[in-house]
């Protein structure tokens, strides 16, 4: 059982790495009270998904996907370029999300003088409403 599990983990270690990273990010987003740490968690979560996509595309021994007549004749295999393209787009989205989130944190720091979630909630309560 144990051997099987270890073999399984090592055979597909790339997926395990991204799952572990995903859970770390997810944990940080939910459990951390510091707003910046939540953003960091979000970034880890997103990066884990990017790694998942990229490792999906890889072929052992594959070359870069610049296809020419010569390469095809020589029988080279090349990695799948599509996930890379998708992830380039997704990285742009992630950067934009991070930028918005950080801008919000800055504005909240100006407003409340803290970036701890609980302190902000307390201050909101003091302000009434």
């Amino acid at each position: 059982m144990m051997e099987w599990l270890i073999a399984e983990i090592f055979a597909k270690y790339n997926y395990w790495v991204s799952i572990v990273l995903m859970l770390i990010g997810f944990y940080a987003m939910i459990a951390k009270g510091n707003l910046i740490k939540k953003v960091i968690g979000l970034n880890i979560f997103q990066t884990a998904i990017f790694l998942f996509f990229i490792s999906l595309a890889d072929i052992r021994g594959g070359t870069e996907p610049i296809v020419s007549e010569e390469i095809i004749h020589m029988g080279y295999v090349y990695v799948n370029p599509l996930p890379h393209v998708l992830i380039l787009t997704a990285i742009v989205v992630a950067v934009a999300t991070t930028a918005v989130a950080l801008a919000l944190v800055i504005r909240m720091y100006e407003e409340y003088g803290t970036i701890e979630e609980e302190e902000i909630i307390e201050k909101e309560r003091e302000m009434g409403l």
Partner: protein
Amino acid sequence: MIVTAHFPVLVIVISMLSAFTILIAGRWNKKTCLPISIATISVQLFMAFFILNQVFTRGTIHYRLGGWAPPWGIEYVIDAFNAYVLVIVLFICLLTAIYAKRSIEREQPHRIVPFYVVFQLLITGLCGITVTGDIFNLYVFLEIASLAAYALIAVAGGRALKASYNYVIMGSIGACFYLLGAGFLYAVTGSLNMADLSHLLPPLYESKVVQAAFVFFVVGLSIKMALFPLHIWQPDAYTYAPSVVTVIIAAAMSKVSIYAFIRVFFSVFTTDFIRIYVPIATAISWIAAIAIIVGSVIAIMQSNLKRMLAYSSVSQVGYIVLGVGLYSTQWGLHGALIHILNHAITKGCLFIVAGAIIYRCGLWNIRDFEGLGKKMPYTCAAFTLAALSMIGIPPSVGFITKLCLLAASLEATEYVFVAVILASTLLNLVYFWRVIERMYFVRGEGEEENEIKMGEAPVSMVLPALILASLCIIVGILWLAGAKTPLLPVVDQAVNALLGTGVVAAP
């Protein structure tokens, strides 16, 4: 006609171009923002109607972006369902833009130009989600729309910042789940095109990867559309956002998220998958039933009008999802699709009224609404009509959806859902009656009848509310009178296309 063939992509592109035009023109003169925005949305709405008509007469539109053939290139596919949602969304956007003029001048006078720029980007995202036939492209547009919404909510400052931040975190989790689902599907099929996936997936339905992908899609999009219990970001976001923004995210954006949910549910995966491999329909019907009751009960406890309407939205999303869960019945999906229209126009109207009351009187607490019926007669009339439609009083469009959902529940012999719908109608009545009673029948202490002066909100704010309120009734009356409106055939065609039954028009 060469231009009309490109309408599916133009409807997105011109919105994005107008965002940048507004940015430049706004630097020169702030007053140019609104006309550009309204003109753009009008053109988009015209295109949407044209597309709807074309879909209706000639069948599904397939548009190849850049001329690349489907499995490799991105394809825009528009059938009756897309076109229907597109028209609703753009119609709401147009009215919101008209309404925005006064509201944003009052609430955010320094941010008029950025507001319209981001507003147009939001519309770009919403249209993009609606027309695309590619799951990754849908993710990108979902994020464009969400990012614009985060920014628009945060514009209000103060508590809206926290609300927006929570929305960023929750929304991003949802989007990441969606992306992960898309990745899983790509891993097993090598395709991202929805139509292509629906052909490639059936032999792989047993695969755990496909089933996990489905769950990721469902959870991710449920967060985006604020389905109970994943709605926690929603009440704060709706309450603290500027009034205009609440209108558009409540009426248009939530509808588009629901559209994406239904599209993935039925067009990427099929009814076979949901029936046999992941029997989720019963589960989501029950979740929806709980959402309907919980949303209504919490709405009754609210004293802030916008917050009450926000919780009411939680329960209304429940109605739509209940319709989806009862897809196997004759009227289930009809109920869901008509409720998309119903909720867009009624909730749009109600939030417009809430904003108008804040604009004119600065009131948001329901307790202070005494005598408003005299003071703002048209606004309150619009509120009352829309509230009647939300409750489901007969000649309104809300009645039709409740009827459809009741018929569906009876057909599925799920009497609990029948009870839930009836109970929620009563609960709706309670929380709307509270507001209407304050507006019309309760007089403040020491106030004389003739002391209350007319103080109606500006025309640009009342008009959209009245248009939407009268639509609630007109659509309902036309339907009940059995008039030949295009609504039923469009919904019929949409349902048939989703379920893969009936005659699906050839491409």
